C-alpha cells in the first residue's frame, strides 16, 4: 500500500470515456487517458482521427455527449471555453488566430485579459485599480516576450510577420494567461526544420522552466519522440496506444495504423 502511494502519479487532466459525435458521425469514441502534472503529452494519429476534436472537448469548445473530464482534481461534465480559461487551460490553434492588425505586444496583452482585476469603467478612466495594473500587465507580457525571444518584433504588426513568428506570437499569447495546462494544436505545422527545432526548444523550456503541463497535436514523429514524455495515439476516433514514446513506438497496432512501417 505504501509503495502504491509512493509511486502514485498526480494527474492534472483525466478524460473518462469521452464520446463526441456530430449529427450521428462519431468523432471520438470512449476515449480515456490521463495527463500527469508537469509532462508533455502528444496526441498523434492520422488526419480525421479526432485529435483536434478531443482538444476542443478539453477546453470546452465542444461538449462531450458521453464521459467526463477531471481537471486539477475537479470533475465536470460540461465546461465552457471561458470556464476552461479561468481554471488555467490555454490553447493555440491549427490555423493562426491572432489579431493581425495589432502589434505583437498588444496581441500578447490580450492573453492577460483574465488577469485584470479592474472594471471596464476603471480602465476607461484609468482610475482605481486600473492605474497600476497596466504596468503590471505590461511587465508580465514583456516577460513572455523575453522568454520566447520575440523582442525585435514587439511593436511590429502581427500581419507583417512571417508564419513561423506568428506561431510563436500565438504561443506567447497563450502563455500570457499563465496556464497550468497548455493545449497546442499542431504548433509546428508548415515550419521548416530549423523553425521546428526552435519551437521544440521553446516547448521544452515552457514545460521545464515554467512548469506548464503541455498537450500537443503533432504530425512530426521525430519531434514527438524527441520532446514528449507520453504519447496517446488515436485512429478513427478510438484510442489505440497510450504510454511512453518508446512503448508506443513498439505497439503493433500503432505501427500498422499510423506509422505504416509494418513490413
Amino acid at each position, binding site marked *: 500500500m505504501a509503495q502504491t502511494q509512493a509511486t502514485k502519479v498526480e494527474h492534472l487532466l483525466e478524460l473518462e470515456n469521452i464520446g463526441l459525435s456530430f449529427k450521428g458521425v462519431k468523432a471520438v469514441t470512449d476515449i480515456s487517458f490521463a495527463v500527469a502534472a508537469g509532462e508533455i503529452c502528444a496526441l498523434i494519429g492520422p488526419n480525421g482521427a479526432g485529435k483536434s476534436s478531443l482538444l476542443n472537448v478539453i477546453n470546452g469548445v465542444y461538449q462531450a455527449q458521453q464521459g467526463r473530464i477531471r481537471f486539477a482534481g475537479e470533475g465536470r461534465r460540461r465546461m465552457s471555453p471561458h470556464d476552461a480559461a479561468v481554471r488555467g487551460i490555454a490553447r493555440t490553434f491549427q490555423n493562426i488566430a491572432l489579431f493581425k492588425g495589432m502589434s505583437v505586444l498588444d496581441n500578447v496583452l490580450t492573453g492577460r485579459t483574465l488577469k485584470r482585476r479592474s472594471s471596464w469603467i476603471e480602465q476607461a478612466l484609468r482610475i482605481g485599480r486600473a492605474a497600476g495594473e497596466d504596468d503590471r500587465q*505590461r511587465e508580465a507580457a514583456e516577460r513572455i*516576450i523575453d522568454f520566447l525571444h520575440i523582442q525585435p518584433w514587439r511593436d511590429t504588426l502581427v500581419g507583417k510577420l512571417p508564419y513561423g513568428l506568428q506561431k510563436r506570437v500565438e504561443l506567447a499569447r497563450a502563455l500570457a494567461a499563465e496556464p497550468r495546462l497548455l493545449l497546442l494544436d499542431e504548433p509546428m505545422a508548415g515550419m521548416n526544420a530549423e523553425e521546428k527545432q526552435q519551437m521544440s526548444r521553446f516547448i521544452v523550456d515552457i514545460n*521545464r522552466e515554467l512548469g506548464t503541463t503541455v498537450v500537443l497535436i503533432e504530425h512530426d514523429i521525430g519531434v514527438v519522440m524527441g520532446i514528449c514524455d507520453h504519447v496517446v495515439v488515436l485512429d478513427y476516433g478510438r484510442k489505440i496506444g497510450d504510454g511512453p514514446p518508446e512503448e508506443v513506438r513498439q505497439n503493433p497496432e500503432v505501427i500498422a495504423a499510423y506509422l505504416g512501417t509494418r513490413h
Partner: protein
Amino acid sequence: MATFTDNTQSDTLPQWLQQQARQQGTGIALRHKRLGVWQVRTWRQLAAEVEHLAMALQVRGFVPGASLVIVSRPRPEALIAVLAAQWLGGVAALLDPLEAAAAQVPLLRELHSEWVFAEGHEEIQRLRAAGLAPRLLIYADGRGMAEVSQAGDTLAFAQLLLGSDHRLEPQARAERTAFTFYRLGAGQRIEQQRISHAELLKEGWRLVHSEQLGRQEEALAARAFAAGSQARYLLAPWLIAGFRLNFPENLATRDQDRRELGPTLVAGTRETYERLHAQVLARLPEPGSWRRRLVDWALVAHPGALQRHLGYWLIRRPLRDILGFSRTRAPLVVGEALAPHTQAFFQALAIEVRTWPDPAQWHRPARWPAPLVNGWIEDSTQPA
C-alpha cells in the same frame, strides 16, 4: 565641450571608475533595456557592484595576473565582471560574441581558463563542448541552468554580489595587461592581442580630447566586447569622460534600440555602418518611381540651397531618425575605414564618419600551453 576633470592620479580603469563614483555618484553610468524598459545604474551603484564581485572573486582565489574569460554578448553583468577582474589586477579575456559557436570551441579548448563568465546556458554548453571545467563559472542568465551538469563552482552573477561591506582598493597597475583578445589566425593558429591599462587610457584620452567628449554623451555599446578597438575607443573614453553607456536589449534589437536612444557618440565598426546602409538600400522605393527620384534628388553630394533645406525635412532628417543618428555628433568607425560608397551615403546625410584606426598587434602567445595530448593539457599555467 569636455566637462570631465583631468585627474592624473587615476592610471587604471578601476581607478577611473572609483573617481567617477566619487565625482558623480548619482549620475547615470549604465543603462540597459530589460523587458522593454530602460533600467539604470548610477556610477556609485556600478562601482559598488564591481567591488563586491571583485571581493567574491578574491575570496575564491582569483589573484593579480589571473585571467577571467568572458563568453557573453554585451550586457551590464559582463562589463561588471570585466571591471572586477581588472580591479583585482587581473585580465579580462574576451571572445567575439558574434563569432560562430563552432569557431569559439577550439579557442576555449586552448584557453583552459580557471575563471569564466558565461552569459547563459548556450555559452556553458559551448564551454562543456570545449572540455573546460573552470574553477569558478559565473553565469548571468539562469534560464535552462537546471539541465546543466554543474561541475566545480558554478554560481549565478547575482549570488556573487551578496558580499560583505568590506572595502577593497583597486589592485590594478598601469603597465599590466587589462584586456586580452583572441582569434584564430592563419593556419587556424591562435593569436592574441594584449592591451595594458596605460595603453587603453592613452588612446581613450586621445579620443576624448579630439572629439571633445563629455558627461553629456550617450553611447550605445552594441558590440562593446567584440574587439580591442572597442575597449580603446568606447570603454576607456566612457570611464574617462563619465558619459552614459547604453546596452541594447539584445543583439537582434540593437538597431531599434539605437533608433530609440539617439546616441550622440557612435563608435561602430565598418560592419555596423555597412549593415545600416544595407538596411536603407533594401527599403528604398523602386528605381524610376517619383519617390525614388525624390530620395536621389535629396541625397546628392553637393546640394543647392533648396535641395539642402527641402531635402533635409523630407528625406535626410527622417532617414537620420530611422538610423538612430538624429543626435549623433561623434560618428566614429573604429578599425577598418568605410568603403567609399558607404562613406558617401553617410556624408549625404550630413553624418561625417571619422575613422579611428585599430593599432592592434596580434601575435602568437609566447607562453602558450602545450597542445592537447590525449585530451590532457600538459602545462596548466594560464595564458596572459
